[in-house]
């Protein structure tokens, strides 16, 4: 039943085109239909011309078949490319929709906080005023971070990009630097960061700025979602032809039903909302895009007790 419904849906060209938000002449499904009709017409014309000028019917049939096959292959390639373009365009509009939604929350926060400060000035004490100024600052920071993340995603999604420079880098230096950067924040929450970073590891081919960003997102998540007195363990070692990074936290963990979505854009696990409210849901997506950009792989494993382990590998540059 579901299968036949799918077929009817596929046959409904108007609806298919509406999905992409394109006019009929830009819509891949409609163009495929037009191409199909064109192939039939060309086949009939070649047959008619063939029987008029060529005596052997077998040769006529063969010519018609070859012409139809060539046209079919060409049209298939063109339509597939159109379909890809249409899909990219659909994804972009969806992305813009989500971004505008994500921007609305901090903007409304700003608007309403200012409204509150403007209510009756005399009735708002200094402490409350300070509190609201800090809300304003936090939300401006949130908007700036979101805009920066979006620019970054857009750069990462472009094929070749001049701003991404691959060079031989030592990952351990970046990680040690980030650990010392996060130490102060982790100490304030009584979270211990333990690490085992091999110093003589081979270099990898990547952009140091982007790699720093990817690892920073992973460490930041581990610290922000850990409970007080938690432990974070970071290691970096060689495994076959790869460098393996591992970060283990004793945080809130990721609910089972959310696990398959965590690397998606703007996804935040249900329990993350209660822990850290200003997350944009882009950190892991950015980390994944960066690691994959440099030929690596990223994944995670839930811990049996509490917390998660995130891994990534990057190929060693020989």
């Amino acid at each position, binding site marked *: 039943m579901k299968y036949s419904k799918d077929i009817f849906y596929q046959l409904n060209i108007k609806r298919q085109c509406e999905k992409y938000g394109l006019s009929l002449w830009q819509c891949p499904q409609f163009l495929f239909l037009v191409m199909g009709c064109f192939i039939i017409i060309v086949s009939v014309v070649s047959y008619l011309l063939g029987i008029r000028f060529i005596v052997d019917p077998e040769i006529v049939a063969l010519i018609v078949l070859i012409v139809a096959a060539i046209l079919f292959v060409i049209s298939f390639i063109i339509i597939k490319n159109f379909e890809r373009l249409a899909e990219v365009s659909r994804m972009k509009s969806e992305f813009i929709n989500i971004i505008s939604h994500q921007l609305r*929350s901090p903007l*409304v*926060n700003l608007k309403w906080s200012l*409204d*509150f400060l403007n*209510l009756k000035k005399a009735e708002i004490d200094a402490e409350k005023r300070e509190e609201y100024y800090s*809300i304003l600052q936090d939300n401006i920071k949130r908007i700036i971070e979101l805009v920066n993340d979006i620019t970054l995603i857009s750069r990462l999604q472009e094929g070749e990009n001049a701003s991404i420079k691959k060079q031989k880098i030592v990952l351990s230096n970046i990680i040690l630097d980030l650990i010392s950067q996060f130490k102060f924040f982790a100490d304030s929450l009584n979270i211990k960061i333990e690490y085992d970073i091999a110093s003589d590891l081979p270099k990898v081919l990547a952009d140091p700025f982007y790699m720093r960003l990817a690892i920073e997102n992973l460490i930041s998540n581990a610290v922000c979602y850990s409970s007080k007195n938690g432990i974070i363990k970071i290691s970096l070692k060689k495994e076959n032809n790869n460098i393996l990074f591992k970060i283990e936290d004793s945080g809130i963990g990721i609910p089972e039903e959310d696990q398959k979505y965590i690397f998606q854009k703007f996804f935040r696990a249900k329990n993350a*909302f*209660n822990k850290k409210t200003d997350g944009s849901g882009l950190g892991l997506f950015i980390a994944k895009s960066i690691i994959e950009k440099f030929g690596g792989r990223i994944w995670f494993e839930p811990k049996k007790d509490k917390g998660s382990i995130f891994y990534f590998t990057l190929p060693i540059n020989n």
Partner: protein
Amino acid sequence: MKKILIIEDERVLQKTLGDTLRKENYEVFSALDGEMGLKLLESQNFDLIILDLLLPQISGFEVLKRIKENEKTKNIPVIILTNFGSAENVDKALELGVTTYLVKTNYSLPEVVEKVKKSLL
């Protein structure tokens, strides 16, 4: 003193709206998700509910449905305060018995307070 329950996961909005309504002499309670909100509705009596639609645990629509199915809470006026302004959502909310549907970006804080006052008349 009239009692208002705000079910909203955005802490800042919960705070700004809560602080403003308290200044207007309402007793305000807040819940960060639907489940917490429904528990508060079970344990206490409220005169008005302000409900967001995008909530972390149960969706705002589900919370609304449960409020309207419950004998104790079905007559409490509900104001929807959300970022979703599609006609489909507005119709769905009105069908479920919502009295006021407000899109956050379209209203200032004093305007929302005015709507609250009207709903409590």
